[in-house]
């Protein structure tokens, strides 16, 4: 049985809720009072994840932290289509890993800005925003050229992978940190395409898009 240690407003937790919804994986939620309770820094939680971070996923005896790591596990274990994390395609796996690391940088910048503006975290907001813009420029350029070659998703042509899941939340929530996406039209288009994935669910702060076909 899967247990997800979860906070509703965490983009990282949402990555897992999203993938599990898409894959149709059942799980139980253990909600953590991240704010204002700071329960993720409590003694009992630090025993589960010494880094004091969400999400954590427990599947029987396996305990995993880090959203990207958990995405890898969930896709490898539960995706029978073998499309979200194609184990038989090393080049794609390499690309996915590259963009999972990129997603981590997005967390460090765009998510940090969001925590600063919304939850009063004390950090260098200018550096966070500047860092996010730098990353968004890189991703927009990547997606623009991908589109020219008929590639609709970050690492793959026709079907999204966990790389898209990993990058999606904090990019779509970037405005909450004062980072507008007006200059990144390719990212905006990718966001629409990704939202049309079957099984897609939202989190607070993200809205659905229109249906692709009537």
């Amino acid at each position: 049985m899967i247990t997800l240690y979860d906070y509703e407003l965490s983009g990282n937790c949402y990555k897992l809720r999203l993938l599990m919804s898409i894959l149709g994986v059942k799980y139980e939620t253990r909600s953590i009072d991240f704010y204002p309770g700071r329960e993720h820094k409590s003694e009992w939680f630090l025993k589960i994840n010494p880094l004091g971070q969400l999400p954590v996923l427990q599947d029987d005896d396996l305990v995993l932290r880090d959203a990207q790591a958990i995405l890898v596990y969930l896709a490898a274990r539960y995706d029978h289509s073998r499309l979200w994390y194609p184990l038989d395609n090393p080049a794609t796996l390499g690309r996915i890993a590259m963009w999972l690391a990129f997603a981590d940088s997005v967390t460090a910048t765009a998510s940090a800005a969001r925590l600063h503006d919304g939850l009063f975290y004390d950090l260098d907001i200018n550096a966070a925003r500047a860092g996010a813009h730098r990353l968004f420029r890189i991703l927009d350029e990547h997606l623009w050229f991908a589109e020219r070659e008929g590639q609709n998703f970050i690492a793959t042509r026709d079907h999204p992978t966990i790389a898209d899941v990993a990058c999606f939340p904090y990019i779509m929530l970037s405005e909450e940190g004062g980072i507008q996406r007006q200059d990144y039209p390719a990212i905006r288009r990718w966001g629409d395409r990704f939202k049309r994935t079957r099984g897609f669910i939202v989190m607070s702060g993200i809205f659905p898009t229109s249906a692709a076909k009537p």
Partner: protein
Amino acid sequence: MAWFTARFPPPPADVAMTQLYRPDPTTLNSWHIVGARDELPLGAKCDSRLLGQPIAILRRTPGTVEVSSAGRSLPVLDRFGYVWTSLGIPPADLFAIPEYFESDRRNVNAATFGVHVSAPRAIENFLDMGHFPFVHTGYLGEEPFTEVKDYDVVISENPAEIMATRCRFYQPRPSPTATEGFDVEYVYRVPHPFCSVLYKSSPTDPARMDVIALFLQPIDEEHVNASMLLSVLDDINDNGQIRRFQQTIFAQDKPILENQYPKRLPLDPRAETPIRADKSSIAYRRWLRSQGITYGTIPANT
């Protein structure tokens, strides 16, 4: 009406905050919330801003909090679990919420969030039901149940408050414990230009009301810290569950509020297009005008 566009690299944080403009007397001489008391660290000074002015908050002991601005000591009120202060000469007391003091109440600060919007816009959003099916889909509303039925609005003079009653809306999941949808009845009250209180009948005891209040700290004309007080009859859920639901709901409103422009509320009735469902907002805008409140607004005839 300058409008702030995002820039890279972004401007120094202070540029947006500098206010040479003096707030209108009503706003200046009101009590304003500046934080949840029990969340303030003991013995450490916290910096904040109120009406564009830097303030410092110090919780000396668990029960005493001091607020100062530019070295000047400000009046302090401890009410509803929050610290209130004023940069002017505030009234003798703050508005009342009798339910808060009932012995079987659970009083919880759901959260305090920073939002890049003016206080009046945030109040209007809190008063609005028409957005429930679109912004709070599956929780407070669902298409095609979009109709906002007629309701009543009264503005009273003493105390100066707005009340909206007989508000009804079909909600699929109106509270953390609800397992099915029903027509929920609301009463809305605006007892302060930047505070609003919502009453809905308690699932635990239908004869009494649960209270959800929105208290806004006007950081400046286009930024607020929004705190949500829940004063509910609930012996099933823990604080975490109560907070979670409210945070989920509020976080759905946040991007909408932050995508409204102008950020300040236009008081000219012809600037935007209200409909009959907006009765309480219409009353609120006229009420602000009648009290001479201009903070966070674009006054009429601008």
